């Protein structure tokens, strides 16, 4: 029983950073912006979150600054793709190359090349009084760091936004058919920029979560493909808030499972278990990805004069 409990606990912990990054992509793609630069945005967010927390001692300030730097870096992508109508993939890739390298560079500049591990104090968990004492579910859902609560709250807000509000409907129209949206007076370009601000901020938070709530150090490559798994999660989740949540929990579960299997196995090289999340991603994508879906004008540049 404890094995299963700890497995599920780890699932939630693993799923949360993915969830932030996948929600970032959801907001981006709903406005037609395919951003494959999540990995890079999360990397720079992770470093800045760590650094700010190391200097000030405040995990909250670290996460806030992680969000800010995510926005700043993502504005490169936004300006190139929205204002200059450049290719989304090219600029997403550029950020994936540029941002992680910048993160490592800043780390080296600040801490030097020494090998001693810099550590910070992780964000403390806060139990929700009463609820946390429910057997099994208490620990799983109501005795976590505030960031976990924020992530799940964000899923609910996202569902309401896209399904119940007028603003959400207009936002979705931009990703589906920007020309039609424009003829109805919806500010297409403004919404596209807004989507990039949201995407940058949430990816940055996802990255900062890794260093301030998950492991207490920064190491190069600590995002470890989560940016790409998050991309898959959006497709798996059929571009909806609820779907993305389930997808992230699934990938989080795979991740948690592989760690536990590594510990308990003899004779099987641990690398095989490490592959599980990535293999799961490939399997899911080849099953689900074949079906066409997603916003129709996703990834297409929008030019106002073109009709």
């Amino acid at each position, binding site marked *: 029983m404890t094995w299963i409990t700890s497995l599920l606990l780890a699932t939630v912990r693993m799923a949360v950073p993915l969830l932030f990054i996948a929600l970032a992509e959801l907001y981006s793609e709903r406005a037609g912006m395919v951003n494959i630069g999540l990995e890079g945005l999360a990397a720079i967010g992770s470093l800045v979150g760590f650094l700010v927390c190391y200097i000030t001692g405040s995990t909250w300030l670290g996460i806030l600054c992680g969000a800010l730097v995510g926005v700043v870096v993502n504005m490169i992508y936004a300006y190139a793709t929205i204002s200059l109508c450049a290719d989304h993939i090219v600029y997403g890739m550029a950020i994936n190359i540029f941002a992680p390298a910048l993160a490592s560079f800043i780390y080296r500049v600040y801490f030097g090349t020494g090998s001693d591990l810099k550590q910070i104090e992780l964000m403390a968990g806060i139990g929700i009084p009463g609820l946390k004492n429910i057997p099994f579910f208490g620990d799983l859902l109501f005795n976590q760091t505030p960031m976990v609560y924020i992530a799940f709250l964000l899923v609910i807000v996202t569902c309401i936004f896209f399904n119940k509000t007028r603003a959400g409907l207009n936002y979705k129209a931009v990703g589906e058919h920007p020309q039609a*949206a424009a*003829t109805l007076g919806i500010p297409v370009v403004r919404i596209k920029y807004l989507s990039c601000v949201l995407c940058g901020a949430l990816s940055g938070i996802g990255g900062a979560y890794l260093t301030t709530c998950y492991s207490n150090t920064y190491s190069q490559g600590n995002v470890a493909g989560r940016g790409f798994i998050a991309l898959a999660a959006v497709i798996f989740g059929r571009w909806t808030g609820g779907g993305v949540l389930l997808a992230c929990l699934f990938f989080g579960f795979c991740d948690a499972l592989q760690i536990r299997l590594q510990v308990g196995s003899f004779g099987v090289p641990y690398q095989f278990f490490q592959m599980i999340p990535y293999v799961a991603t490939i399997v899911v994508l080849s099953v689900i990805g074949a079906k066409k879906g997603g916003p129709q004008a996703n990834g297409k540049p929008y030019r106002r004069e073109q009709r």
Partner: protein
Amino acid sequence: MDELLRMEHISKRFGDFYANKKIDLTVKHGEVHTLLGENGAGKSTLMNILIGLYQPTEGKIFVNGKEEHIDSPAHAVKLGIGMVHQHFMLVEAMTVFENIILGDRNVSGLFIDRDARRREIEELSEKYGLDVELDKLITEISVGAQQRVEILKALYHGAELLVLDEPSAALTDIEVEGLFAIMRKLVSEGKSIIFISHKMREVLHISDRITVLRLGEVIGTVNCAETDGKALASMMIGRELSASQYEKMEAKGECVAELKNVDYNKNSKHNGLNGVSMKVHRGEIVGIAGVDGNGQTQLAQLITGVLAPQSGSVELKGKSVSVYDPSSFIKNGVSHVPEDRNLQGLVGDMSITDNLVLKATTAEKFSRGKGLLLKKRDMARYAGEMVGRYDIRCTSVEQTVRSLSGGNQQKVILAREMESEPDLLVAAHPTRGLDIGATRFVHDKMIEARDKGVGILLISADFDEILEVSDRILVFFEGRIMGEYSGKNPPVEEISLAMTGK
């Protein structure tokens, strides 16, 4: 009936070209006002100005007697002007209901009050007989229903004046009847409609007044009751029937290409062919007349091997074609001046020389070992020759073709296609966007080729061009051949009526 809209002296210039020139248009309350004109007459430009997509170079717009500067589509919506575009502006992944309320600014509040909005929409739909299923996705409903959604959407956003851009184009005959019933209902409720079409029968059927545009200018506005199809057609075409300067031939040489009962996408009125049979002989120019988008594109692609017919057959020089691909057609002596020179005719970033030899890189003349090694010097010499013979104005043969003017680009294509000594030349809109001098040059070259025994298929939406050079004229309408006429003293009015499907 007082005026709802008055457009005064509207001009729109693109570079040196006037798309609209001092256009006056008034629309009264409760009338169907038709804009009639050929492609490129300036109808769309005028409507784009009205709905705020373009800014006029000069002129004024009055709505209900008040001067307005319409600087965005949102502003036009606010003024009660709604447009149903030819290509619908609907979000396919959303429901009918969501499409209608999209961008709604008449209500406030964060959340969508579905019940209240529904009631409003249902009221409207009942009032005007616009029957739609609100909870269906756009992809689940027919084209006719999509159009009703568009109209309902415009009304919901407060439209008093509806612009319908070729609304009948995508509809079946029964759906067109339904559309007309709705239009009548709208007008009887005091709404006004600007109707754009070139289908004469429909125009005469539904309009109150008709304004005819030609080459960006208003030719006249007439009451529908006081006119007929013939009069309108001649206003539309508006020619001083000058005889062609070229001698018309009646060649019955060898048949170089024949289509036998060819079908392609036959249920599509605009992108298909329906039972087309035709021949092109040596030494004649066969002109395909018709409004753009009646199957001409498919015809050109079929007869050059880009597309394969779905039924029927194509014969080249008496032999039936079994493999449809452009290279085997080229080997069979088919040359093609495609309709879009930048997209299909040229590689913009390559030099004039390279573009000129593109089709003949394996020829002895330009390479050793069937294209293994190019003879650069011979190619350059050849390009220099072509520049002289086809009057291509350039600074050097190494210049990229993208940097040439449209007319000179067309000459590069013409040089390449003519020099391969074809048996059949398919020329699609060969003078589109060219000035008078360049047009004349292209026509001279075509006549020259004809006299040498080339069979030419000329496809053009420019009726003047068809009349000028064709020895035989076929009229296309909705993928069918409406009639065949001699190029010598052609019955102009009859042909222009046939072009509108009558």
